């Protein structure tokens, strides 16, 4: 038992959990606690206004709340400055921002892994038309990160490494600290897709020494349409703008304009204030529960599921067999059952919500000639009883003998 961790008390904060559902699709979207919902509503009920533009007291309040949120995110990932936190719509936008602003040139090379989400693959593939080469470092057979292959991927032209932190495909967490060290040794910057890590892992951006890190609010109890791009201050300051317009410039004439400083220069147009404020509240909530506790809780549930199903002949687990290497993700296939059908059966029989398909990692599934998988992703509010029901239902599906 994790000391002081009361899952039943946590569940009371989540209105969605009053429904008769077992929500195991957290890697796609987390549920929202009442604290976050109330905080979002607070903006609309009490201080709806523009930040950074108007001088009245409501605008000042919004500005103040946005600053608080930025500080919450900064503290969550232990960034050095709050100006290193750029608010985006999601991880995808954060990576696109970096891809288009870092200043990659013809002939430069980028290293990625073979398990990247489309959001950390397509933005780089798109740059190939500018003469940029994308190098894919292959994983080990058990889908864990292969440092040797990674080392071999570098050339003198490698300018950037963009790697997933915890894979949404199988939950395997990559050794980002080591990857960052090797990248820097080779003179490359490192960008991390932390969409699956930020919600349930203690992340110390300074200790990891990553240059950029993107994650989404909606997977970490925050509102949809919110995300973060972390970037080292000196890098952000020297980067080109991505989307430009209102709030990204300090001044303009008909012929020229003066760029704002980071992070403002990257936050074009009117922002999703209620969302950003809600995201700040989500960070507060996560810190209160404790990310280490959440991580331990997920692992405990994954252990229960893995140990109950790993010996089933018809079950094949995607990723490493050891549950401790797969965080809160149990991605699998049942022999003879289409993954979409399996997910639909779970929904229809016991209201269990799982994800099925390629999980936006089509490249990996294509390479392995698989249609997809069923993915159960666990989070802080899931219970051992839910894990048991899930296991029982999977065993029943196996007994269907299809």
């Amino acid at each position: 038992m994790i000391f002081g961790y009361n899952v039943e008390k946590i569940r009371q904060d989540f209105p969605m959990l009053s429904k008769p559902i077992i929500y195991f699709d957290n890697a796609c979207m987390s549920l929202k606690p009442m604290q976050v919902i109330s905080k979002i509503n607070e903006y609309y009920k009490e201080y709806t206004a523009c930040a950074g533009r108007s001088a009245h007291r409501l605008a000042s309040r919004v500005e103040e709340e946005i600053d608080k949120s930025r500080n919450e995110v900064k503290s969550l990932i232990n960034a050095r400055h709050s100006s290193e936190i750029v608010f985006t719509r999601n991880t995808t936008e954060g990576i696109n921002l970096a891809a288009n602003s870092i200043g990659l040139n013809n002939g430069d090379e980028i290293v990625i892994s073979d398990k990247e989400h489309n959001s950390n693959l397509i933005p780089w593939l798109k740059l190939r038309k500018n003469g940029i080469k994308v190098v894919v470092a292959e994983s080990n057979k058990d889908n864990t990160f292969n440092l040797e292959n990674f080392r071999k991927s570098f050339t003198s032209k490698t300018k950037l490494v963009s790697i997933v932190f915890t894979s949404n495909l199988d939950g395997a967490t990559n050794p980002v600290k080591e990857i960052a060290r090797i990248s820097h040794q080779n003179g490359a910057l490192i960008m991390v897709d932390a969409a699956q890590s930020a919600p349930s892992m203690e992340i110390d951006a300074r200790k990891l020494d990553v240059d950029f890190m993107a994650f989404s609010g909606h997977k970490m109890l925050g509102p949809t349409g919110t995300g973060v791009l972390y970037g080292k201050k000196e890098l952000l300051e020297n980067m080109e703008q991505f989307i430009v317009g209102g709030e990204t410039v300090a001044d303009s004439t008909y012929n020229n304009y003066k760029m704002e400083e980071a992070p403002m220069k990257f936050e074009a147009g009117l922002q999703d204030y209620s969302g950003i404020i809600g995201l700040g509240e989500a960070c507060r909530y996560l810190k209160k529960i404790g990310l280490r506790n959440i991580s331990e809780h997920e692992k405990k549930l994954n252990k229960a599921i893995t140990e109950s199903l790993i010996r089933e002949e018809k079950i094949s687990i995607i990723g490493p067999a050891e549950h401790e290497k797969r965080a809160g993700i149990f991605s699998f296939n049942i022999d003879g059952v289409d993954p979409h059908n399996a997910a639909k059966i779970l929904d229809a029989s016991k209201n269990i919500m799982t994800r099925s398909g390629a999980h936006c990692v089509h490249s990996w599934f294509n390479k392995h000639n698989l249609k997809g998988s069923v993915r159960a992703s666990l989070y802080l509010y899931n219970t051992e009883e839910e894990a048991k029901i899930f296991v029982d239902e999977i065993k029943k599906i196996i007994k269907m003998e299809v």
Partner: protein
Amino acid sequence: MVLCILALPIFAVLGIFSLKYRKLTLEALDCLFKTATLRKCRSSLDDRTKAAMAGKALKFSPKAAGLVYRNYKIISWLLLIIFLWSAYEGSLGAYNYYKYGNCNGPSDTGLCLLDPTGSNSKISAIDIDTQTNIVYPFAEKDDPIIGSESAKLTIIEFGCYACPYTKKAEPIIKEVLEHYQGKVNLQFKTFYIPSHHMSYKSALAADCANEQGKYKEFHNLVFQWQDNISDDTINRIADNTGLDTKKFNDCIAKERYKSEVDADTLMGVHAGVSGTPTFFINKQKIVGPKPFRTFKSIIDEELKK
């Protein structure tokens, strides 16, 4: 694909009210079109439904779920056959209702969902065995005719003066005779319904009125006074129609036309009549106070012959 055929009309109707079903309709339509043009249907509607059904069955037992999952194609074909059969029966019912006022045709008095109160098919019935050897009724020269004597077609009506449904059919028959003036006439044959008060006596009275040449007037007035029919009412009708009441009452008292009344009822029984009103247009039978369109459909067919 099978499910797409099945789903298309259902979703199309539901789609009028809901965007969700509109999307499913388009999906089913696309699948049907692709199949018809010998291309692969990529809709996962079949799979989704299969899994949802198996999931529901899994609540009871894995074996049941497996059975549904493995035999889904057979199940969907069976559903399609049932659906097509129901659609055919439903359409036939709607066609019959439109044409004959009853889902099962002009001679049926059973339940029709399009006429839930059964207003087109109610009859005053007698308890009688179904006739196997039908002898179709015919117009008799010594019985009175309503409408043109020289008409090509005669409707034979088996009715009862005390029957509310025979009364209900009266304005419809009048409309028919007016519409087909000169082409169609009517011979009303009294069909005795024992459970109806004055059924027999009013039948005798009509024949007695005919004796004095006042049949049509008497016939019309009896229906007008039907709700209060009694000996006294019949006398008042006789008065109003200018009958010689002494002769009229004597005729009734002596049951002078008993054999005619009995013969009419017997003719009805031989023709398979089990209640009033029942109409015959040649060999076509209409049971109950069916709407004008029912008579029109059959008369038009018979006049063409």
